[in-house]
C-alpha cells in the first residue's frame, strides 16, 4: 500500500468573512506529482502555506510523513524543499552562495553540502552563472536559482508554488523536465499552478480547487471522463444539407452539432472512432470538406463544466 506523505483533513482557513479554504481534504501519496489546479485566488497558495505551517488555520489537521505538522516540526521540515511563487534569494549573495546558504540550513556536513550545491547548480543549468548576483540573471535563470535553493538538500517532499510564473518557454520546459527528474529520483512533488497545460503534462494526480474547496480529484483521464463532452470534431465544409446534419446527429455518441460560416462542430460524448464515422457520412454523400480537427477535452473544459467558468482569465 502506498504511503501517505501529506494529509489534510477538514482544513478551514478564513480571512474575515472570506473562506479561503473550505474543508479541504488532500491525501498525497509517496512518489506522486500531485497537482493543485485552480484559478487565481482559489486557495492554492493558502493551502500550501497552511501545509508548511506558515499560516494559522481555523480548523482541521495537517499531517506530513504521518506526523502532525507544527512550526516546530524541524524533523519534518528537514525533509521538505520549498519553491515559493515569489523568488526568495539574497540579492547580496552570488548564485553559489545563495544555494550554499539555503542548503546549509538543512545539511551541516560541509563536504556533503558542497556536493549537494554542485549537484543543484548542474541540475538547474547554472554552471556558467555561479558567481553572478541575482540581479544580473534573467527572469528564467532567477527562477532556476529559486528552484536550486529549494531542492539542493535533496528533500523527500518538494512543494512548488507556481514556479513558472513569468518564465520564458525554454526555462519553463527545463523546469518541468527537472520536476519530473526529481520525481523519478524519488521525491514526492506537490505542484500548484493555474496553467492547466503544465499540470496535465507532469502531474500524476490532480486536485482542482475553487473558492478553497476541492471540486474534483483524480488522474487527468479520470478528470476528463467526468465530463459529458469527451471530444469535439471540427470540419470545414462549404455546403452542408440539413439531412446530412440530421444523419450525423443520429450517429451514436453524438451529443450535438453546430454549423456556422462553413464550419461544422460536432460534440461527442464518449465512444470511440467518432471522427471516422462522421467522415464516412460525408464521403457517402460525396460532400467535399477541408481541414478536419479533433479536440480532446482539457482540464479547462472539466473546470468549465463543473463550475460554469473558465480556469484561466482570457488575457493569461
Amino acid at each position, binding site marked *: 500500500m502506498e504511503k501517505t506523505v501529506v494529509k489534510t483533513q477538514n482544513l478551514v482557513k478564513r*480571512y474575515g468573512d472570506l473562506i479561503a479554504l473550505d474543508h479541504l481534504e488532500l491525501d498525497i501519496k509517496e512518489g506522486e506529482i500531485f497537482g493543485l489546479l485552480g484559478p487565481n485566488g482559489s486557495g492554492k497558495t493558502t493551502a500550501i*502555506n497552511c501545509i*508548511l*505551517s*506558515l*499560516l*494559522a*488555520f481555523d480548523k482541521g489537521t495537517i499531517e506530513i510523513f504521518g506526523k502532525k505538522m507544527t*512550526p*516546530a516540526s*524541524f*524533523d519534518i*521540515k*528537514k525533509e*521538505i524543499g*520549498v519553491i*515559493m*511563487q*515569489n*523568488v*526568495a*534569494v*539574497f540579492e*547580496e*549573495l552570488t548564485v553559489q*552562495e545563495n544555494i550554499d*546558504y*539555503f542548503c*546549509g*540550513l*538543512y545539511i*551541516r556536513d560541509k563536504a556533503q553540502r558542497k556536493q549537494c550545491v554542485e549537484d543543484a547548480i548542474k541540475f538547474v543549468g547554472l554552471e556558467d552563472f555561479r558567481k553572478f548576483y541575482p540581479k544580473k540573471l534573467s527572469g528564467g535563470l532567477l527562477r532556476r536559482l529559486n528552484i536550486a*535553493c*529549494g531542492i539542493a538538500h535533496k528533500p523527500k517532499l518538494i512543494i512548488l508554488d507556481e514556479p513558472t510564473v513569468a518564465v520564458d518557454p525554454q526555462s519553463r520546459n527545463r523546469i518541468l523536465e527537472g520536476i519530473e527528474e526529481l520525481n523519478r529520483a524519488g521525491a514526492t512533488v506537490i505542484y500548484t499552478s493555474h496553467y492547466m497545460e503544465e499540470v496535465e503534462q507532469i502531474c500524476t494526480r490532480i486536485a482542482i480547487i475553487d473558492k478553497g474547496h476541492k471540486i474534483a480529484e483524480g488522474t487527468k483521464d479520470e478528470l476528463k471522463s467526468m465530463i459529458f463532452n469527451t471530444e469535439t470534431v471540427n470540419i470545414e465544409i462549404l455546403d452542408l444539407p440539413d439531412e446530412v446534419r440530421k444523419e450525423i446527429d443520429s450517429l451514436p455518441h453524438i451529443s450535438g452539432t453546430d454549423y456556422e460560416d462553413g464550419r461544422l462542430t460536432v460534440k461527442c460524448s464518449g465512444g470511440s472512432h467518432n471522427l471516422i464515422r462522421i467522415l464516412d457520412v460525408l464521403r457517402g454523400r460525396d460532400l467535399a470538406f477541408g481541414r478536419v480537427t479533433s479536440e480532446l477535452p482539457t482540464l479547462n473544459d472539466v473546470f468549465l463544466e463543473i463550475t460554469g467558468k473558465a480556469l484561466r482569465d482570457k488575457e493569461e
Partner: protein
Amino acid sequence: MFLHCFRYELTTAVREKSVLFWLVIFPAVLALLMNAAFSSIYDKTSKFSTIPVAVVENSTDLLFRSVMDAFEDNEEPLLKATYTTEEEALGMLERKEVKGIIYTGRTLTLSLADTGVEETVLRTFTDQYVVSSAVISDLIKQDPAMAQKAGEAMSAELDICREEPLTKGNTDPFVQYFYNLIAMVAIYGSILGLQISINNQADLSPLAARKACSPVSKTVGVAASLAAAWLVESVCIVLFVTFVRFVLGVELGGDLRLIYLSSILGGMAGVSIGFFIGSSNRFSNEVKFGVSMAVNMTLCFFSGLMASSIKLVIEEKAPWFNRINPPAVISNSLYYLNVDDDLHRYAPAIAALAAMTLLFSVAGAVFSRRKRYASL
C-alpha cells in the same frame, strides 16, 4: 548552524549598499561639512591667540613695561606689544596689523578700530591695568626696585582676561555636534535592525518565508542576524569615530577607548531598536522603514542634533527623557567623558545603553518568535 547563518548574514550586511551609504558615507560627508563650518567659527570666536597691539609711549611707564615683559615670558602671551611712534601705530591699525593702540603716559588710554573678542580683551586689560596700577605705582614710588616684581604679579593678574577652561577636555562648544553625529550614526543602526525583522518574519518577505520552512529555529536565525548586524554597525561606527578624530582632527575629549565603547554600545542599541520597530507591528515594510526613520530623526532632534538648545530645554523640563532617549544618552556619555575627571556620570549612561540593547532585542525576539501568521 549559528555560525553558518552568521557568516552569510554578515556577508549580506557588508554587501548591502544602503548600509554603506547611511552608516559610512552620509555621516562622513556630514562630519566633513560640519567640521568645515564649525572649525572656522571656533577659530574666530573661541580659540585664544596672542593679541597684537601697538604701544605709543608718551612717557616711560616702568610698570607697564615690566607687565608687558612678563607677558612675553609666557609660551602663549596675552599681548604682543610693538613699541612705535603714533604715526606708525595708526598705520599698523589701519592695515589691521594690530588690534589696538595703547598710549602710555599719565594714564593708559586705548584706541581701537573695530569691535570683537580681541578688542574686548584689550579694553578689559587696560581698564584693569588702570585700576591696579594706581595702587602699585604708590609702592614703586617708595621702592623703585619693586617695579619688576610688581609687573610680574600684575601680569599674572591681568592674564585672567584670557578665558581659562574649567576642564581638561575639549572646550569647543561645537564638539557637541560631533557627539550628536556619532549618536546619529549609532541610531541609524536601526536600518540593519529593521532588515533583521524583514528577513526573519515570514509575513514580511518571501526570503523569511523560505527560512521559516527550514529546520532552523527562529531563535538561532534571529540571534545570528543580530550578531552580524551588531558587528557591522560596530565596525561602521568605529570607522566613523576614527575618521572624525584622526582624519578631521576633531578633539573629542576623554579616553578614546571609552569613546569607542560608548559608540559601539550606542550602535548596538540602534540595531536593537530597529529590530524592535520591525517586529512589533503589522505595517508594510515601506511603512516600517518610514516609521523607523521618523523615530530616529525625532530622537536625534530631541538629543540636539539640529538645535543644541533642545536638549537643554528637555533637561530642564523633563530630564528623565534625556536618560532614556538613546541618541541623548550616547552624546551625553561622550560629553561626560570629555568634561568629567571620573566616570561617575559616564558609567550609568553606558549601563543604560547596554540595558536598552538587551531590552529591545528581547522584546523584538518575543514579537517575532516562532509562530504561524494570520496572513502572508
